[in-house]
């Protein structure tokens, strides 16, 4: 086993471990901090795959912006074990049934999977920003531009919500 494979296995294990800690840790703020750690480790995985652009965008967008807002809101609420909303028995049963149903669906879907040999062109330069840009603006230009329309509509929606609230106050 080469050094890079060992690195990939260790990094992958750490990623899964910290992702599990997000669910397992009792305190919401700690949970979010583990989520941040998970994003960091995913960035590490991207770097290992030489997908530099994706790695740094993951840091800027998720770790640097989205998670700061998460942490922000949780710190405002200052949730702790004492004032956590208690989940009733009914909720727990419903959650178990829903989760179990999802698991059955996934197992059913994966049961008949045939493993085909994947024949992807091996090109470790693909994640570099020049090549990624070339792909995004030629082969995948339509999905790329459509997703930007999605973001614009989300932004317009957010502004609209904020504006409407103001009008009611006036």
């Amino acid at each position, binding site marked *: 086993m080469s050094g*890079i494979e060992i690195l990939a296995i260790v990094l992958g294990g750490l990623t899964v471990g910290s992702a599990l800690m997000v669910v397992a840790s009792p305190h919401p703020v700690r949970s979010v901090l583990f989520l941040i750690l998970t994003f960091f480790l995913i960035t590490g995985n991207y770097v290992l795959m030489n997908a530099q652009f994706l790695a*740094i965008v993951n840091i800027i967008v998720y770790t640097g912006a989205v998670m*700061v807002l998460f942490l922000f809101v949780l*710190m405002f609420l200052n949730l702790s074990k004492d004032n956590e909303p208690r989940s009733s028995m009914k909720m727990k049963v419903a959650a178990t049934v829903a989760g179990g149903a999802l698991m059955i669906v996934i197992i059913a879907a994966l049961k008949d999977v045939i493993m085909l040999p994947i024949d992807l062109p091996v090109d470790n*330069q693909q994640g*570099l920003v020049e*090549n990624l840009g070339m*792909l995004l603006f*030629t082969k995948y230009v339509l999905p790329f531009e459509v997703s930007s329309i999605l973001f614009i509509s989300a932004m317009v929606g957010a502004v609209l919500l904020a504006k409407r609230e103001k009008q009611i106050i006036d």
Partner: protein
Amino acid sequence: MDISLLIEKSTIVVVLFLITLGIAAYQTLMERKVAAWMQDRVGPDRAGPFGILQPLADGGKMFFKEDFIPKNAERGLFILAPGLAMFTAAMTGAVIPWGPPVEMVGRTIALQVADINIGILYVIGFASIGVYGIMIGGWASNNKFSLFSAIRTSSQMISYELAMGIVIITIVLMSGSLSVATIVEQQHGFWADGYFTWNVFKQPLAFIIFLVTSLAECNRAPFDMAECENELIGGYHTEYSSMKLGFFLFAEYVNLFISAAIIAALFFGGYNFPGMDNFSGITLSILGTLVFFAKTVFFIFVFMWIRWTLPRFRYDQLMHLGWKKLIPLAMINLVITAVVIAFTSGWFSEDKKAAATVEVEQKQPTAVLNNASDSRASGSFRVNLNH
């Protein structure tokens, strides 16, 4: 892995780390001296000639203070936070080219830790996670004022990152590369083709916006909402003492140094100086590095000058400036730049139309991809990893 490359890079890392810490230490003295000068005082002058040993005295004092952790603080996170602040501050310097490449024993040594081809995004990335040290520290202290400070700082930094990002996109449009080394190389010399080469003369508005946003990102006055003493006691480091407090303060000075260096690299030509073509080899490298550090120290001085001149903004004024003034200005600047570039060297220019007819044969994306990966994209980051 190539052993000489490993030695070369580790030397640069260690030297850069030492220089960063040294400059950060002496910034504390410089700050007090500049303040004294602006207020017509003498400033610290007891420790050594002209107070030159003052940072050592301050550092020694910090180490021997009582290290106190409040009883209700989140112990682990409380200890982690100052380290995190210091770590993110020190990491950013990795992509800055500190001088022209040195030719030595038959190989070219770039005076840069890593010339990754996303360099400038790396800087934004580490600037945006720099807020975690403050947030975690403020929250873990279990103090209302610390928490207020943490929340203020994080919203301030998120707001000002946007304008900063847009300005950086403008610079990237101008240079066509995300690598800081390339951006600096393109500002070669001082005067070319009948105009200045430095970006500050091409993008004066972008420079002003970048200066203001980096003041806000460093939490420097007039944007030091994080520790506004008359409202928040000491802000996020109210509960900290000893070297943990020292680390927070130190991280701020490291950030200041790195910000000044980035301003010098992006807008003031980095290591380029007028008449640099008269020199070559090792002389050029030494002179270039000195010039770069001189520019950096000048911008550190400008930051201090601003701090001791302007009073602190009110919080709503800060948000107003960030969202309603700087972001629209930066966007207008970006659009104008993009249109000008499209007409001079982009899609709508004459030579591009001629080039497009030649390139029409290579329409298949895979062909384009292969070409690109063959010629340009042998990123040096990969070289660094699997050399």
